[in-house]
Every structure is written in structure tokens, then in C-alpha cells.
């Protein structure tokens, strides 16, 4: 990394995976990042949701609110993911009820104070952080169902050079016209349905162009994070979380909440 470059690390949904979050923070700190960000969905899926928040606060991770956090903080009935499949709804409900019951009032109030989006200027580049999309917290932007022309529209409408989101659980990026960029930074909470147990986050670099008349150059690198996932499995067992969730943590394949996957992303998975 050159002296003139600006580098930030951006984490997606944590889903109560405090072990992966701790590993990702440590990893990012070795990469010379200036600031750390998290795009929300701190709870869900994993064990002991309250373990996540002190890690965020202690590492000075600037966070925004995801749909899960929004639901938990406001005491809504569900996570706002909009499933119709009864099996997906069953597991989503289990996960939500567990997380709701085990998130303390203190951290609910903390989540309530978080913004829905955050605008940054990184090395002269306008970066917009959001959870689902800039316009809707629970909008799924999958790689195979999001046209480039739509992303360009969002970049225009929200006056951003770089848009970073999460929510779907699978990382991807796309270069947009005029040097702009969209990236889904992935999630730390569970693997990316790719048959490996690592989870992912994104490092964003902004480099000044050699020609001062040109825009700075932006790039996104996805970083796999290995962590002690067997320890997480032990904690999940202690908390009586479903075997289906544990299988995902160990195998890297999604077993639940599959309904929302478009065909290309679904075809890459096992289920």
C-alpha cells in the first residue's frame, strides 16, 4: 500500500459470530486499514448475541443498522427478510426468537442509535455504506439479479462513487460506468455457500490517479477469514441452536433461508 492510499475494512452481517468478528478485526488491523466499518445484522444464526457488541465498540468499528438490528431494537415480530417458504420461515423464526431473547436491553438501545446508512469521503471518493441497498435496508442485491444499469442508477441517485452493502450473505463486486464501484462485502456470520468454512470481508483501497485530472482509483479485495469455527459450533450446541445452522458453519454450505437465492447463486450451493 502506498503512502498516499486510503484503505478501509468493511464487515458485513456478523450474525452473532463473535469469533469470526474478532478474527476479522485482528486481520484487518494487520493490513494497515485506517478505519473499520460494519454494515449491520449483528445478531441471528449464531450464539450469544451480546458478545458481538463489545468487540465492535472496543475496536472502534463504526456501524450502521441492518434489518435484523432494526427488528430487534424495535421489537418487531420478525427479521423483515420476507420469506414465504414454510421451512425458511421456521428457521428464521427460531433464529430471531433466540436472538431477541438473548440481546440485552443495553445493546438494543445502542442499535437503535445507529444510522441506516453512512456517507464517507475516502481519499476524495464518495463512499456510501448501506445494509441492503441505499434505498431499502432489506433489499437483496444479488450478483445475478442486479443489473449494472440499476447500480449505475443508484450511484447517480445517491451521489456515490462507491456503494458498499451486505444483506445477501454472498460477496461480489461490479465496476460501474465512470469508474464507480458497487460491492457486496459479504458476511462474517456464516460461510458464503461455497463449501469452505471461512467467512469474508472487504478491504477497500483508494489510490490517487497518476493523472491529477482523473478520479482516484478504487478497488475492493475480498478477504477470507479462517477462525475457530469448531469453538463456535460448541457454543451453538450449548445454546441448543439447530443442527442445520451448525452444519452450515462446519461445511460452508447453506442449509436454510435458501428461498431468496436466485438460480445462479443457488446452483453453486449444495441445497
Amino acid at each position, binding site marked *: 500500500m502506498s503512502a498516499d492510499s486510503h484503505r478501509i475494512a468493511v464487515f458485513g452481517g456478523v450474525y452473532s459470530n463473535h469469533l469470526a468478528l474478532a478474527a476479522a478485526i485482528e486481520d484487518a488491523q494487520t493490513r494497515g486499514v485506517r478505519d473499520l466499518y460494519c454494515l449491520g445484522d449483528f445478531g441471528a444464526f449464531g450464539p450469544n448475541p451480546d458478545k458481538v457488541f463489545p468487540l465492535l465498540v472496543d475496536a472502534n468499528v463504526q456501524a450502521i443498522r441492518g434489518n435484523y438490528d432494526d427488528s430487534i431494537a424495535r421489537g418487531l415480530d420478525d427479521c423483515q427478510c420476507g420469506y*414465504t417458504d414454510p421451512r425458511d420461515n421456521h428457521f428464521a423464526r427460531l433464529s430471531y426468537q433466540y436472538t431477541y431473547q438473548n440481546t440485552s436491553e443495553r445493546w438494543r438501545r445502542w442499535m437503535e442509535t445507529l444510522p441506516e446508512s453512512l456517507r464517507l469521503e475516502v481519499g476524495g471518493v464518495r463512499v456510501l455504506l448501506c445494509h441492503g441497498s441505499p434505498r431499502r435496508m432489506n433489499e437483496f442485491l444479488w450478483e445475478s439479479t442486479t443489473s449494472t*444499469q440499476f447500480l449505475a442508477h443508484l450511484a447517480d441517485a445517491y451521489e456515490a462513487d462507491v456503494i458498499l452493502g451486505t444483506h445477501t450473505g454472498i460477496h461480489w463486486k461490479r465496476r460501474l460506468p465512470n469508474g464507480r464501484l458497487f460491492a457486496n462485502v459479504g458476511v462474517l456470520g456464516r460461510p458464503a455457500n461455497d463449501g469452505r468454512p471461512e467467512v469474508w470481508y472487504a478491504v477497500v483501497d483508494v489510490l490517487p490517479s497518476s493523472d491529477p485530472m482523473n478520479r482516484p482509483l478504487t478497488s475492493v479485495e475480498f478477504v477470507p477469514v479462517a477462525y475457530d469455527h469448531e469453538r463456535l459450533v460448541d457454543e451453538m450446541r450449548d445454546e441448543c441452536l439447530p443442527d442445520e445452522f451448525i452444519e452450515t458453519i462446519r461445511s460452508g454450505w447453506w442449509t436454510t433461508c435458501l428461498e431468496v437465492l*436466485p438460480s445462479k447463486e443457488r446452483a453453486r450451493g449444495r*441445497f
Partner: protein
Amino acid sequence: MWNLDLQQVRRCLADRQSVSKSTLTRPNSVTGDSPYVSLDHLDTLWFQVTGTICNLRCTHCFISCSPDNHAFDFLPLIEVEAWLEKSSSWGVKEYYFTGGEPFMHVDLPRMLEMTLKLGPASVLTNGTLLPNRMLDPISDTAHASPYSLEIRVSIDGPSPETNDPIRGEGTFNRAMEGIRKLLDRGFLPIVTATQVWAPEKDEEVRQAFVSRLQGLGYQNPRLKILPSLRIGREVLRERGYTTSERVNSEMMEGYESNQLICASSRVVTSRGVYVCPILIDDPDARLGSTLEEATTPFQLDKPACYTCWLHGAICSNYGGIGQDVS
């Protein structure tokens, strides 16, 4: 005019947490005028690519499609190409092809090839006409594109005994053969069933569908159950809407209107641009000849709007019965 932003809706919802879903979904009386829904953004562009012309004559068809219903005609390839070109500058997110039966259009493979360069596409078919000469090029295009091509196959029961009285003799087996051909080519079709059974049988029917599809080798089938739309031929099969089944302004309080496809979609037909694929038989649903004209807000005063209000974006790939829209 209804054009709430998310913040407003959330504040409103927060204020109304004591209002139960049953209050929202079963209004006791119709009060006030029908609300309007604005087009937030043209996320989805539909093509009524074969108009109302279909090889089948389903007894529940809400636009009464049949082999001889020429109320809406085929869209020529050159017109679809022009609409696609125009749509790009609108930032359209995805495209849907419906009819009638889209596989009756000989140019469907070429249309999908053009579309999948711009964004994802979905085709709504009855699955009974999937000739290899069309499926093979479509499959090649789909696999080469970075975007998903979803094929939705309509079947209204998990057996010939339950499906064929609705869709016609032999259609169950033909549609299952269509699904097999799609699976052979690496597609993961979304099987779409209209709820022509009693709602309490949803789970039983769902299970029967799953077993039947697993019998074809579709281990984790994608299944979507839709409510029936009580217009068109469905009025004769079952019933039309009652006078109390209407959307009023009160019912939109705290309701996220972006769940309705009229907030994010328009449909191109041989007779102009309509608000949605459900209402094309209603002249009021024709909003103009161009996308610009068709940005007009739409008043939810049509009886079928009630079904969308109850179930959300039922026409999209991810809506349907089971979704909590309150």
C-alpha cells in the same frame, strides 16, 4: 397520493404496533377513497410477449388467455429490442416475459439473448411447449450470462387429477416433462401453483408437489403458491370479488407500498404500457404509449388490487402466499 418514504413508514409502523394483522387484513367496512401508488422507480419491465394468446385455456386465467383470444397480440422482436434499448437509461433492474404462453413466440430465444446482456430475466410459462430448438439456445444464453434466467412453470396441482381440470387434459404430464427438460439443462425452475384448493390444505399440497418433483430428480424444488385473482375466467370458476374486497386509504397506513408491483413495474403490451400484468383487461390500467407516460401514479380502485395488497408482489419471483406483508 401515496408516496411514503421508508422513514415515514417506519415511524408510522412504530406508532401502530398495537394494530393486529387481522385488523389490517380483514377490514370491516370500506371507507374513504382508493389510494394512489406512485412509481418509485422502474425496477422491473414486463413484456406481455405473446399477448393473451396461449395454447391452453385455464379455467382460472385472470386475463382469459386462449388460442383464440387476440385481445393482445404478440410483440414483434424489433419492438422488444427497442423497448430494451429504451429501458437501459431507466436503470431497469430486471425483466419478465409473460403472455399468454411465451414459448409460442418463435423469437423468444433471441429476445432473451438481448435481455440477458442488460440484466436478469424471468419467463412465466405453462411448461407444455418447451421445444428443444428453443430450449437449447436459451440454455446456452443463460449459462453464458452473468445474470440469472428464471423459468417459472405454472402447475395448479401435484397430480393430473388436481391440475388437469384447471389447465386441461394431459397438461400435468406435459408440464412435468417440461420441468425434466429444464432440469436436464441445468435450470432450477420455480414451480408456481395457484391456490385452487382450500387454504388449510397448503402444507399437504406443498408436500405432494415436493415429492412429485423429487421424483423427477429435483431434490430441493423451488415452489411458489399464489392466490387466485378473481377476475377474468376465475369469476366463472370460483367467484369474483365482493364489494368489500377493495383497498382504501386507511388500509395503506403503515403499509409499505413498495411491496406492490405497481410501485416498481410496468408492462409493455401490443396495445401500450399498462400498470401491471394482472389488470390489462381494464382500460384504466393502460397508462400510455411510452414509459414516460406510464409513470403516472395508479389508483388502487380495481378489485384485484385487493389481492396484491393482501399478499404483496405476487407476480415477482419471491412473493406469494406465506409472506407477511403487514
